[in-house]
């Protein structure tokens, strides 16, 4: 188990951070908030390989692992860039990787990996655990920008061209992650061979595990922004960051981010190695969801009035953190998942 960032990962982080710093600073994200997904940025992320790290090379990917992908997720969380990373590069890609014996899956996967198109998994973003799937789904992440939809119906994943489906964008609480309602009734579909339920499960687990790293990125931005603000903001003739109550609160926040970072790294490492995956992912989701929300809430509060304004980017992180808490299982649902895995049942099995 390696919970550190490798040198390669640090370099990757630096190049992603450079790109995002140029193209998706919080201020520029805020300015373009009504434009939906930033497809130009997405293509550039694909060009530096950041969207297909965990896809094998023979399928057009970088042949690295979820460890590296998690580093990208952290940086994307830190910038709240509106790109279809979770929906396309994680969820859809994981499904296709799992069903890669099917030539249509393989073909699409290669196109996704090369950034030529994006896809979405048609389940509500809040999904966790066995998912019924079906012809309709509400609150589907990154569906509006997707050209291809992956629709699980009765154990089989179907591939549907988005132009044949009814994709209705809805107003998203998280303004930097568009959601849509999807209805594929009557659309021509290509069923993919292979175990669909398993593929969906694997995708949700991978998504939840990588989401934890995104949440760490969100939390870190919030901590950094808060610390910078309370150093610079003077009230009562002192920087407000010299007041002990505020110092203790940001210290506690830092402490919780130390824990969240370890948990998220463990989840990414587990996804990469296949060891201890289910426990690692649900531990990370339970913890990192709560830490990101708390960090964003403290960020708004400790910015005082300015944090309540539209012009300050703090709200983008609050909305992302709150939506991420729901995404791919709430903390409570992940704890319920953990209970039997760690032999802490509510009821004894007879």
């Amino acid at each position, binding site marked *: 188990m390696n919970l550190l960032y490798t040198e390669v990962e640090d370099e990757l982080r630096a190049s992603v951070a450079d790109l995002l710093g140029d193209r998706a600073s919080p201020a520029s994200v805020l300015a373009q908030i009504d434009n939906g997904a930033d497809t130009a940025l997405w293509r550039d992320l694909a060009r530096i390989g950041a969207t297909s790290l965990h896809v094998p090379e023979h399928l057009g990917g970088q042949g690295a692992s979820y460890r590296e992908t998690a580093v990208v997720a952290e940086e994307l969380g830190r910038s709240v860039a509106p790109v279809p990373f979770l929906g396309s590069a994680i969820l859809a890609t994981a499904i296709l990787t799992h069903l890669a014996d099917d030539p249509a899956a393989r073909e699409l996967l290669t196109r996704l990996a090369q950034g030529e198109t994006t896809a979405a998994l048609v389940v509500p973003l809040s999904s966790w655990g066995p998912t019924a799937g079906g012809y309709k789904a509400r609150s589907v992440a990154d569906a509006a920008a997707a050209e291809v939809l992956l629709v699980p119906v009765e154990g089989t994943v179907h591939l549907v061209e988005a132009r044949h489906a009814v994709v209705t964008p809805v107003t*998203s609480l998280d303004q930097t992650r568009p959601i849509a309602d999807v209805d594929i009734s009557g659309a021509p579909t290509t069923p993919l061979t292979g175990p669909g339920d398993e593929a969906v499960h694997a995708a949700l687990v991978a998504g939840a595990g990588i989401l934890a790293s995104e949440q760490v990125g969100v939390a870190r931005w919030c901590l950094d922004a808060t610390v910078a603000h309370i150093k610079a903001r003077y009230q009562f003739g002192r920087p407000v960051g010299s007041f002990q109550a505020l110092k203790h609160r940001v210290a506690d926040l830092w402490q919780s981010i130390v824990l969240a970072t370890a948990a998220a790294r463990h989840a990414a490492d587990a996804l990469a190695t296949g060891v201890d995956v289910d426990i690692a992912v649900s531990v990370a989701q339970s913890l990192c969801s709560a830490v990101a929300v708390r960090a964003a809430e403290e960020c708004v509060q400790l910015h*005082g009035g300015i944090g309540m304004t*539209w012009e300050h980017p703090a709200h983008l992180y*609050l909305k992302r953190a709150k939506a991420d808490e*729901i995404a791919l299982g709430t903390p409570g649902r992940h704890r*319920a998942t953990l209970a039997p895995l760690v032999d802490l049942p509510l009821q004894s099995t007879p």
Partner: protein
Amino acid sequence: MSGMRDRVAALLSAHDPATTGRLEFLRARFDAGLAWVHFPVGLGGLGAPRDAQQEVDLALAEAGAPDNSPRRIGIGLGMAAPTILAHGTEEQRLRFLRPLWTGEEVWCQLFSEPGAGSDLAALGTRARRDGDDWVVTGQKVWTSSAHNAQWAILLARTDPDVPKHAGITYFVCDMTAPGVEVRPLRQITGEAEFNEVFLTGVRVPDAHRIGEVGAGWRIAQTTLMNERVAIGGRPVPREGGMVGVVADTWRAHPERRTPELHDRLLSLWVESEALRLAGIRLRQQLAAGSPGPEGSAMKLGFARLSQALSALEVEFLAEDGLRYDDWTQRRPTAVDFTARDAGYRYLRAKGNSIEGGTSEVLRNIIAERVLGLPTEPRSDKDIPWKDLPR
């Protein structure tokens, strides 16, 4: 108290609400001393005890009389009026109070600044004397109703060379005067309840100064004290407010319930009920003539609960919690937690621990004024405002 009933009857018989215009009725009510009975005679009151008001309001409401839309003119009623009464000249009282109460003239408050929030006394808007006028320049923020207001209560710095509390003067500012620019201030909910107000060379006659030059800070305490009382003062039925909204959401969605959320909801229900009971207790203390410091506990609790409950609601709603009703920049005149969706409640509630005194400042006040803990070492009290670090 039977005197009140007689006076109400007399007002109603002289001005039948069914046939009298709204404004005419309100003016008559004011002139009858039934506007705020605890105000002096001639200024809309009768010098009666404050709690006689309830009976008057009730009797008039039963008779179908119009009210003065108190929520629309809350700042005038709750903050400007008590201050003008306590510190204004007789001329100012006679000029301002009647149209304030009837709602003919809406008021707003120009106190907070981008650089002076919790530390209001650090405010930097300058007023310089020029003949019979003051010339005011600066920027104010978090001003509700500024775009509808005729008048503002204004704090401005008239002497930067003395310590910050000593150099502030209290004015009434005409919001229609040249140099007053109001810009909507958009919030994280998408709407713009509040405004930024830019003051550029605005002329305020010295006759609109409230109290002595340099006495503004002390006078502002009257205003702010009344703000806090107003916030803690509303009675609520069981499950009133945010807890009722979230409880109803729970009842409407059996399929989304989990044991974890159940216990969290019940915890918050219990705390909301206790806060409600504490509010009742506080009002019973007030009625018994022994007001306690519990108002600050109410405000802290209200902020905490509205945030925790709305956070739980969004989480509970899962795929619906991921949605938002509308990001349009609306211009609401009052906050209504029930008219919008869960996401709005969650975001708007974040302001409850900031507006009207942050929870951090409230905790300081409780620690020092209620519990008698020592103040922190301070360096900003004795040095001239212009030399403060900022």
